[in-house]
């Protein structure tokens, strides 16, 4: 009788341990899943933060803005963008030392005309600049903000759109 009781108690113990193991395994898997999701979310947050930081920097930096100092208003100087494209490879290498790797910017003037890419041979009758573009298509975060663009040829401030691509 006592042996049966002991066996039943043992069985109860084994079943309980078995269920506990299942529950713990399930919980560990759930926690790992959450951790992976958080890592993923943290990575996308990092990318978004970097994109925001680049956006703020590019729109305010005296390297591209009309004023030589940092101002509240965002007015990009078209001649500075054209000048940056004159020797793009070297310019991008220098800019990457300041702003980090794997990004590119596009500035387009919204003037209702067909998009025409600017370069050092055509800098008046054009309305778009692309700087430091990379040949990566996956995992690219694209963000844009409205900016003003100062057109030197017409001495006017026009509306434009700055697009920042973050590749990593």
């Amino acid at each position, binding site marked *: 009788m006592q042996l049966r009781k002991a066996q039943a108690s043992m069985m109860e113990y084994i079943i309980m341990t078995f269920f*506990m193991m299942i*529950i713990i395994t399930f*919980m560990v898997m*759930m*926690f790992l899943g*959450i*951790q992976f*999701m*958080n890592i993923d*979310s*943290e990575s*996308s*947050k990092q990318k*978004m*933060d970097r*994109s*925001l930081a680049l*956006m*703020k920097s590019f*729109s305010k930096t005296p390297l591209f803005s009309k004023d030589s100092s940092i101002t*509240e*208003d*965002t*007015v990009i100087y078209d001649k500075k963008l054209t000048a940056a494209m004159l020797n793009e490879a070297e310019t991008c290498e220098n800019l990457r030392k300041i702003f980090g790797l794997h990004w590119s910017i596009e500035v*387009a003037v*919204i003037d*209702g005309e067909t998009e025409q890419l600017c370069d050092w041979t055509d800098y008046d009758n054009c309305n778009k600049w692309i700087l430091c573009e990379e040949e990566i298509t996956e995992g690219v975060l694209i*963000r844009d*903000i*409205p*900016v*003003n663009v100062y057109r030197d040829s017409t*001495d*006017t*401030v*026009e*509306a*434009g*759109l700055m697009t920042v691509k973050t590749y990593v």
Partner: protein
Amino acid sequence: MIIIVFFIVILLGSGMFLLTLGKSSTQSTQDEYMNIYATNLLTTLVNTDIDEKGSDCEKMSDLIYNTIIRSTCKCSDGNSCSEWLDKKMGMYFSETYNSFKKENLDYHLEADYGGSPLVLHDNPAVKEAGKKRWTAEVNIFKTGGMLSVLNINLIIAQS
């Protein structure tokens, strides 16, 4: 048995907490972006040149200001400032803003000068309760004899 249930509840609770934490940090970055977007959209609009140099309608901010304070104001082509304002606002919110506008967002723009507001682009949907909103504001200082302040507000809300 009670201990096991207690153990499960604690684990589930901390799991939910971790999930919420991850989501809220991404949301705050998105809000920051939307605030920058709204501010830049408004400053870009008011700073854009729309008429000849020295005209009452040189910049969008001049046009808005002159439309409010001077009923006799005219732009370089001889049309009244209020006509120009209607035309330009229509153009900005249909053509130009199509490049700036984001999907599933409503835009409302109004100016306020000395307590008398002027709606520049009306979209009452932005003021509906329960909608997520982002606002931007610029103050334009004018010194025509006395210092005046023109306040322009942009409200963006989720559709």
